[in-house]
């Protein structure tokens, strides 16, 4: 057996193993997702402290709306913000929330074709928000969080906060029986 054949066999083995594993993982994930109810997806929203999030969001924004230190405010440094948001775990919670919204959109597309347009817009919005948090997680992984935080974090955190609060308000208005459960998770 020549060297080229050995590399060929090893390459094929690795490729088949990778393809089978990925296919298996995502098939199971798609199957699990297809069986979830609306309520069970909403209940996966992770609690994010609204006061802390609001404080972070407002700290580095001028009245004009442009990012930057607000005159007259002491300001939070990146380390403090990192601590307040709960570090990488806190960022993962935000990312998890964006996944919940994507799952909600998928649930709608699957079960309610009449909501296709709304579901697709919701999915695209949630993906965009997930992208912002992804940049932060990536920066945390490469040790550049301090540089990236002022560009992404406050906006993303505040957006997530508003999304989850919006959902909570909706349930408070429309479905009191589920509000208690939702308040535990938000």
């Amino acid at each position, binding site marked *: 057996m*020549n060297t*080229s*054949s050995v590399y*060929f*066999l090893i*390459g*094929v083995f690795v*490729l*088949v193993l990778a*393809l089978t594993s*990925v*296919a298996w993982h*995502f*098939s199971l*994930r*798609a199957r699990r*997702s*297809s069986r979830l109810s*609306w309520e069970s997806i909403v209940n996966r929203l992770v609690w994010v402290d609204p006061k802390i999030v609001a404080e972070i969001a*407002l700290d580095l924004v001028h009245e004009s*709306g442009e*990012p930057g230190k607000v005159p007259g405010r002491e300001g939070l440094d990146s380390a403090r913000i990192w601590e307040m948001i709960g570090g990488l775990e806190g960022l993962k919670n935000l990312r998890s929330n964006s996944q919940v*919204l*994507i*799952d909600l*959109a*998928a649930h*709608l*597309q699957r*079960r*309610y074709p*009449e*909501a*296709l*347009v*709304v*579901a*697709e*817009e*919701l*999915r*695209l*919005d*949630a*993906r*965009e*928000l997930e992208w912002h948090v992804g940049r932060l997680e990536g920066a945390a992984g490469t040790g550049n969080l301090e540089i990236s935080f002022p560009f992404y974090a*406050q*906006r*993303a955190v*505040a*957006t997530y906060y*508003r*999304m989850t609060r*919006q*959902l909570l*308000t*909706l*349930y408070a208005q*429309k479905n009191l029986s589920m509000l208690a459960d939702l308040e535990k998770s938000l």
Partner: protein
Amino acid sequence: MHLSGLDFLFWVAGFVGHVVLLFVLWWRKRASHYPIFTTLIVSDVVRTVGLYFIHVFGTKGQYYYAYWFLSIVDVVFELGVIYELAAHTFRPLGVWAYDLRGKFVGLISLYLGIASALTWLASPRTRTWMGTLVIKGTFFSSACVSELFVGMLAISATAGLPMKTHAAKILQGLGVYSIVELVIDAGHGYLGSGSNNRAYFVLSHIRMAVYLGCLCYWILTLWPDQPAPRELTNEMRLQLSELQRGLQESLRRLRSGRLR
């Protein structure tokens, strides 16, 4: 080329399976939703019949060239089916979801690179350059199709774009077959295709048996209708509307840098 009783059995079973599947596609009105998949099955029927007549009445050379020409056509249609399934899944509003375009281009480039590298490494034991070309070409197409299948599955799950029931069934059948085919074509790529190479024919029989299994799977899963759609309750409609409005507003501010 000598064909054994088992070869003829697979041949007949494949023909019958394709005809039954065509009947299901036509009778249950799936053909209009999946025209390229239906065309693939029609081409398989034509291929089975055509190759039979060439085998009986034609020359060995004619059979050889017809076989490989039709194999290329088959691969083109398989890629077409993947496109069709992707279009069903990733164009929910009639246009390709913009958040996935870059991912698709990146994945296809990666897949072509992996498939090309492995194909380059393959050194099948054949007597002619044509045999080498055919085996390498078949392996390359198997690698591309199986990678595309897995890529579609992954993108669909991560992007939150669920596949319709029938599209998922077609993709699952094609995906399982393409991965098995990849393994078998890798075996061919290693063993070569000498006429006295028993392992080559054993692998070919395994591939045919797996394909017959896929045909049965498609027949059974494409016959039932998809789950009936539900109607949104007024409450859900209102919730969605409010949630969407909130998100749009958040994004507008996010893009412009305004948080309040």
